[in-house]
């Protein structure tokens, strides 16, 4: 009985360690991630002028937000709000889908934070970025 317990514990330890090696990479080639990426790519041409005008900016938590609604004619503001909502819906789904696809749903926030940094780092000059001290132009 004693040796059985020891064997079981050993096997469990070995299993945990083995899965640690397997987790060293991040899988993004899943149908869900690809679909969300394509959806966001298709929306980008509509969002790009609003990024450039400052109507929409990047938030520090990995999403987008209306930064300056007055940069958009009144008639279009509803459409911009809808674009922002749709983009954020996709981004939220993307972060949790990547976490889920890698077997660690609890990584969603880490993934979102990593994306937040990369979106901001790779944003074009002139876009609006939300930092610790509020909005600033990149």
């Amino acid at each position, binding site marked *: 009985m004693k040796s059985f317990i020891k064997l079981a514990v*050993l096997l469990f330890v070995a299993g945990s360690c083995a899965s640690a090696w397997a*987790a060293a*990479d*991040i899988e993004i080639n899943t149908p869900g991630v690809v679909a969300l990426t394509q959806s*966001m*790519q298709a929306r980008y041409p509509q969002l790009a002028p609003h990024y450039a005008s400052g109507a929409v900016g990047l938030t520090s938590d990995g999403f987008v937000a209306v930064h300056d609604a007055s940069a958009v004619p009144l008639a279009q503001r509803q459409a911009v709000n809808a674009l922002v909502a749709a983009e954020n819906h996709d981004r939220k789904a993307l972060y949790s889908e990547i976490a889920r696809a890698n077997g660690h749903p609890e990584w969603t926030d*880490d*993934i979102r934070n*990593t994306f937040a940094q990369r979106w901001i*780092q790779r944003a074009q000059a002139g876009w609006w970025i939300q930092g610790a001290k509020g909005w600033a132009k990149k």
Partner: protein
Amino acid sequence: MNKTLIILTILSCSLAACVTINIYFPAAATEKAADKIIDEVWQIQKPDQPKPEQQKNSDDKPAENKTQKETK
């Protein structure tokens, strides 16, 4: 019996260590994955284009960014 307890203690300590490793979040790999997705979403063509921005982190990327358009 005492011996078994000691062994079990040691084993559970190493088990805890392994679980800690297992929970470790692969930040570097995620950054690369994020860049790949951002390239696609924002249609960024040339990652090697010198951009007038301060390099915040040392993101010295190898040439693998060039394969951004490979199909799944």
